[in-house]
């Protein structure tokens, strides 16, 4: 299908690109550490309960996949090298990727760290047609990040995402609007957006296995069986999707969570991890120039039962001390009512706002001093690394 790369996107109603990095975390690790190149690499937790965040293509050959327990992945590929994730590093590469995309259009919608939609409809006159832009993006990503990506070029988001996946890794796939339905017809419905294992099984039960099967169905009958989702799937089967590429200027939330190798049985120990998370959340808020109005603490027990406790903050804040206080209060209120050993603890800041910040009347002195402390620690971290400075009592203080 790469032959399509000679097609022009001129005259399409919209030209949408889906850019997807190839085995992102694993590729970053292989780039940064030559010893890992050409070898099966699993990025993820090493412990008993570790999960694979990304598997290099060498590891995928053995059946290793992301979201698989590390133990299971190692059973499939015993000689795989497990690497601890370095999210700060991935985030920096992700920022660089998004910056490259923004050179081609202001309409960039990041889906995750390694994936984004770009609407280049308005850029074609100035920067060449969609296929040329896709080629430029792939060239720049290779030159500036030393990484590869796959790009799908299509008249809408759904088909673009489908296209980028067809020739992975390091592919460029164009799916033009003309003849689209016929091109999609042989594809399995598992490739359809919003069709997970459960939905797929339901579709199979009624004899629908490919996009073509759905295209041939009577629309009303299909919708009466599958409801609102059915309506959506029917449109998608022809490659019709009119959702716009939207600029997500603000993340919905910023959070951290951690699963422990063994359930933690001491409340104070859990609290130490939680406060370190709250501190990291505050640092990320400041870096993104966001402030939170809500804080949520999530606690999971050995039996996987999960609870969460939320509080609304008096005013939008990115201050370490305020977020730590709020997290501590929530945790202690829960722990006082009967502590149970904890398998996972997490801390999420939500209700994020950006822009000018309202000053308070009654905590002026404290807030100015604390802001200075936060600013100084941020600078020290930026210069000497994450482990260089932090609140006393962090569980990772010695690293």
């Amino acid at each position, binding site marked *: 299908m790469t032959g399509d790369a000679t097609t022009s996107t001129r005259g399409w109603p919209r030209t949408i690109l889906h850019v997807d990095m190839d085995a992102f975390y694993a590729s970053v690790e292989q780039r940064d550490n030559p010893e890992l190149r050409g070898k099966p690499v699993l990025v993820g937790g090493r412990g008993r309960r570790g999960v694979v965040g990304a598997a290099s293509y060498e590891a995928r050959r053995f059946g290793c996949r992301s979201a698989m327990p590390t133990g299971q992945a190692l059973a499939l590929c015993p000689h795989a090298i497990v690497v601890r994730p370095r999210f700060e590093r991935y985030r920096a590469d992700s920022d660089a990727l998004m910056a490259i995309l923004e050179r081609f259009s202001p309409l960039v919608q990041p889906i995750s760290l390694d994936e984004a939609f770009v609407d280049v409809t308005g850029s074609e006159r100035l920067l060449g047609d969609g296929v040329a832009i896709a080629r430029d993006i792939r060239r720049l990503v290779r030159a500036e990040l030393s990484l590869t990506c796959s790009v799908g070029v299509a008249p809408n988001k759904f088909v673009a995402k489908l296209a980028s996946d067809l020739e992975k890794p390091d592919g460029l796939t164009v799916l033009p609007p003309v003849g689209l339905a016929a091109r999609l017809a042989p594809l399995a419905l598992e490739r359809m957006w919003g069709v997970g294992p459960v939905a797929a099984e339901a579709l199979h039960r009624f004899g629908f296995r490919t996009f073509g099967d759905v295209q041939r169905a009577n629309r009303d009958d299909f919708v009466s069986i599958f409801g609102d989702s059915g309506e959506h799937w029917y449109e998608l089967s022809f490659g019709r999707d009119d959702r716009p590429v939207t*600029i997500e*200027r*603000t993340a919905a939330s910023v959070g951290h969570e951690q699963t422990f190798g063994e359930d933690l049985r001491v409340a104070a120990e859990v609290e130490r991890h939680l406060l370190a998370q709250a501190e990291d959340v505050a640092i990320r808020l400041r870096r993104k120039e966001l402030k939170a109005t809500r804080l949520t603490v999530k606690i999971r027990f050995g039996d996987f039962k999960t609870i969460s406790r939320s509080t*609304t903050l*008096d*005013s939008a804040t990115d201050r370490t001390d305020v977020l730590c206080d709020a997290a501590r209060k929530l945790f202690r209120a829960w722990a006082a009512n009967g502590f149970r050993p904890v398998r996972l603890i997490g801390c999420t800041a939500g209700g994020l*706002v*950006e*822009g*000018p*910040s*309202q*000053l*308070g*009347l*009654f905590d*002026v002195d404290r807030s100015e001093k604390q802001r200075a402390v936060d600013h100084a620690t941020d600078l020290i971290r930026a210069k000497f690394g994450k482990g260089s400075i932090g609140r006393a009592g962090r569980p990772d203080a010695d690293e």
Partner: protein
Amino acid sequence: MKLVCDRIALSDALALASSVVPTRTTAAALSCLKFVARDGLLTISATDTEIGISTPVASVSISDEGEALIPADKLNQIVRASEDSTLSIDVNAKNVAVIKGQDSTFKIFGHEPREFPGVQAFPASKIEFETTAGMLGRLIHRTLFATAVDNSRYAINGVLVDRKGKKVRLVATDGRRLAVAKGECTRAGDGDAPQCIVPTKALNVLGKLLSDPDDPVAVARQDNLLIVRVGEGADAATLATRLVEGSFPPFEDVIPKEHDKRVTFDAGELTSAVRRAEILTNEESKGIRMAFGATQLVLSSRAPELGEAEITVDVEKYEGEPMEIGFNPKFIMDVLKVIDSPQVIIELKAPNKPGVIKAGNDFTYVVMPVSL
């Protein structure tokens, strides 16, 4: 209990009393209004156990004295939907209320009057101060808007009442702005009264009781209750409220003692300018920039992805160096709505220090800026 009353007068009293009735309650008696018909007078009471109100109903003719406890919701609907000029209410010993109009008969199942918790009577011996409904209403109007819904550190979900001699002031804050309104008592107890914090809901209800500015008002304290009597003699209405516990923030400390910039505006012109600048702000960028100069104030705002605004206002008088400062326009509009003087004065010191808005000698508003 059996009586005939003017429907409009009854409807007004029901609306007032119902503003206290809790919307969700498991205690049936609390969702009811209590009727007491005695000595030719009908009084309607309601309580949510925090706030209680008793209000008289005008134009009633009582044929059988007695008490009744009638569900507020249905009674209100019946009286509001009726087109009769008078309605008769007859409650039998089994607590069934029969409400009759010209062409209608409603039966509502009431409750045993003794189940009603009651409303604290006005303790005439514990009067703190007396004033007029006009004065108290004005103080409430000028402060109530600045209260907070909830705050983890301070008790600011109410208004602070502070009396020193015959001078009384109400203070409200949400932690970002502060309103202080001052007034005079017609009579006051000896010395200074201990400060107390009155819940926002109680002041909202009280505001409705203060509709006639000439009504005399007496305010009393008993235990942790504040009890207000509006009107005189048998026609007086009473509101009793529990006080907010907890500490009010140190508000005196944040009222700036000095300033080096002082601007005078026509209140109407400033209101119009802020209202227009507010158009191009959004949830995320709740700030307008105010650039003060010798002859003009330039307000500007920007809403990402929407657009920008710039409005120029003539300054009547400016003392000091030019300065730029950001404010949440809502906080400025809120105060401009409640001041009734033709001129407003803004005093400033620095872009990160509170601004002060004054109207006359009896109102001060302190507002923290936004950092732009």
